[in-house]
């Protein structure tokens, strides 16, 4: 870190090193069975969350599950998507807790976090705009622009999350 620049980043890095020294953090990264178990759960919950979000998105874009009205997919799949999201968030947080400085210096991890944020904003924006008028467009053969674009953005961002998530393991370069 250059002199005089980024005091906030410096203190964040110091804070992460402090966390990494906790015995409980060391316990996570040194656990023989815990690490594979956490990663497995993370992938399984990704299948539940990502898989069902993508199935819903395909309907929004208008290229999949076209026989089912969007609202039925949304209402029935939402609880399962949330179960997946909660498990992947918890396992993800524990994995980061075990090696905070490894993740904070990994470009793919940082990109993944940005894309999760953008995907969440996209979902909320859709829910509080286009989705409010679903009565008008649900039965129409062509989805309105707001629905299609929210669907496309969601697919692109969640696919990006999966790809960058996988690439975290390949540390070609690190940000310092």
């Amino acid at each position, binding site marked *: 870190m250059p002199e005089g620049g980024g005091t906030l980043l410096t203190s964040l890095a110091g804070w992460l090193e402090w966390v990494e020294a906790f015995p409980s953090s060391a316990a996570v990264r040194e656990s023989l069975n815990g690490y594979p178990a956490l990663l497995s759960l993370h992938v399984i919950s990704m299948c539940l969350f990502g898989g069902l979000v993508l199935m819903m998105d395909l309907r929004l874009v208008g290229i999949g599950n076209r026989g089912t009205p969007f609202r039925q997919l949304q209402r*029935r799949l939402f609880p399962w998507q949330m179960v997946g999201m909660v498990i992947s968030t918890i396992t993800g947080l524990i994995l980061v807790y075990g090696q905070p400085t490894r993740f904070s210096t990994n470009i793919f991890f940082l990109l993944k976090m940005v894309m999760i944020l953008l995907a969440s904003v996209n979902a909320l924006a859709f829910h509080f705009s286009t989705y409010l008028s679903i009565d008008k467009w649900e039965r129409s053969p062509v989805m309105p622009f707001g629905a299609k674009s929210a669907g496309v953005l969601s697919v692109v961002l969640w696919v990006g999350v999966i790809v960058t998530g*996988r690439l975290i393991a390949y540390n070609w370069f690190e940000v310092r």
Partner: protein
Amino acid sequence: MLKPFFDWFQELPFSVMFRQSTWLFPMFDAVHLVALAIFAGAVLLVDLRLLGVGVKDRPIAAIFRDAQPWFIGSSAVLFVTGVSMLMGNGEKYYYSEFFWQKMIAVVIAFTLTFTLRRRVALAGEGRVRPIWLRATGLTSIGLWAFVVIWARLIGLV
């Protein structure tokens, strides 16, 4: 028994290129995972419906037909990316017990999916008793979860 085949497989020009490239394996790995998400979505849509906790508003057969193209498409991508990664590192997979156990589970799961599960889903709620619908959904979810977890373990152990 299959060792000579694996040795031959990993010395093919594509395999050598795959192994020597820094980014080819990670890219295929990432595409494999994206295809897995779509695959899982298409499987779960039907299995949750079989269990009676999914999109209950529509008949099972209708959900199954809508999900089928995505199931087939993602299976094809999983196969191509999977075989490519196998070609690059034949030896590693040959000696991994998780790999072989995963492959056996994949064969069993696909066989059941294209026979029993397909017939049950297409026959639907009218002609199959609820207990058998649930048993089919649960078996499918269980087998594929095994495949996913074992796949994750290949890279770790």
